[in-house]
């Protein structure tokens, strides 16, 4: 009972990491995506490199970097929790940006041409014609990424964030038992079950057209 309460508390922290990461990275992904698609070459190069680094190196290493690097450079670290949020946000923004970009590129050029000939402004075309179709296109890929994020939050334990996995680990070594870890596994499973059901509903709601 005691254990369950502790794990529930850890789940609270896990959900905080999860939701803050989404709140920051979903919009930031748009900015990155815009940078990735801009015609201004220096910006595109920088954003390209950023995405390559975020996708090309282990998230675990990025977490350690954002926790320890400020200490060596500025002599002070971010609080563990916020270092984790920063690392997750920057990492997931890169992935979301790539998803947004593929969603944009899937829009047929004819949609832009029809909009132009009908006299729509660029802003109207983007917000009313392109964006709704992009959102529909990318929902499945975003769903995948969000499910991965639920599991990735466990990595925050490596820099000492007291979240679900960390608490389960501590309880395991204290009680010489793997049971707490398995219980934590059930918690992750339940969270992702809910996430995937939510995405199912969203996908169905957008299935009114093809």
């Amino acid at each position, binding site marked *: 009972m005691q254990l369950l309460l502790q794990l529930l508390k850890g789940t609270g922290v896990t959900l905080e990491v999860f939701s803050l990461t989404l709140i920051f990275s979903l919009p930031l992904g748009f900015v990155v995506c815009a940078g990735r698609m801009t015609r201004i070459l220096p910006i595109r190069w920088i954003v390209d490199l950023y995405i390559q680094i975020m996708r090309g190196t282990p998230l675990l290493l990025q977490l350690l970097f954002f926790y320890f690097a400020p200490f060596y450079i500025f002599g002070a670290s971010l609080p563990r929790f916020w270092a984790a949020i920063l690392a997750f946000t920057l990492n997931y923004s890169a992935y979301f940006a790539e998803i947004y970009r593929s969603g944009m590129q899937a829009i047929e050029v004819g*949609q832009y041409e*029809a909009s132009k000939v*009908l*006299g729509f402004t660029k802003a109207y075309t983007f917000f*009313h014609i392109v964006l709704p179709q992009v959102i529909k296109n990318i929902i499945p890929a975003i769903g995948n990424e969000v499910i991965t994020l639920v599991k990735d939050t466990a990595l925050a334990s490596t820099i000492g964030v007291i979240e679900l996995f960390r608490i389960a680990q501590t309880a395991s070594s204290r009680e010489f038992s793997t049971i707490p870890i398995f219980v934590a596994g059930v918690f992750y499973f339940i969270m992702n079950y809910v996430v995937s059901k939510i995405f199912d509903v969203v996908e169905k709601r957008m299935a009114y*057209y093809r």
Partner: protein
Amino acid sequence: MIKAEHISKSFGDNVVLTDISFELKKGQVLSIIGPSGSGKSTLLRIITQLERADNGTLNIDGDYLFKSNGERAEYTGSKKAREIGLKVGLVFQSFNLFPHYTVLKNITAAQRAVLKRSKEESEEKAIVLLRKMSLEDKAHSYPFELSGGQKQRVSIARALALDPEVLFFDEPTSALDPELTREILKVIRDLSEENMTMAVVTHEMAFAKGISDWAIFMDKGVIVEEGSPAELFDSPKEDRTRRFIKSFEE
């Protein structure tokens, strides 16, 4: 209505249009024929502002979209260009309906956003047009629920809803089977009977001959020959034209 003089256009080193001049008078139907890659579509796309001309002069309903300064085409300001754009409608080969909008909304969206018509007014107009296209029962369907011919009729209604002075068709039946093609050709024929000014790029020779007041044959970016349909289709002067038209009879 439309007067084009010496229009030229290249994509990089690839010359697509050379010295194109023609005139389309109010209430007339012009057909443009020619093999693929002859520049017909590019010409329509220049007039509807989807492409920019390199050189030449184009007057639409009394206003210059661009004027040659001898070396290149100088375009009018963007506000004027938008105004001119509203006078021309374009029907695409691939329909390009908005998949997330119902048929009704496909036809009302531009009326509301661009012409600032009220919801009631734009819907009324849409219903009238849908009736004309015998599609009034499809107002609340989505494009994916329609056949190709129905989609193309919706896209014609969408273009007509903005009351264009001229309507351009870019191979409107090329994506359709023969039966659906007839559907669309009938709609275009009906429009010509109402004296709608139109220019049609098409491979439907019999149709082009029957409907148009003037016909142009293009090949490799130049106008090889033009004339009344009787002249161009029945007794073409140029060997190239003759061969092209004959290739449809086999």
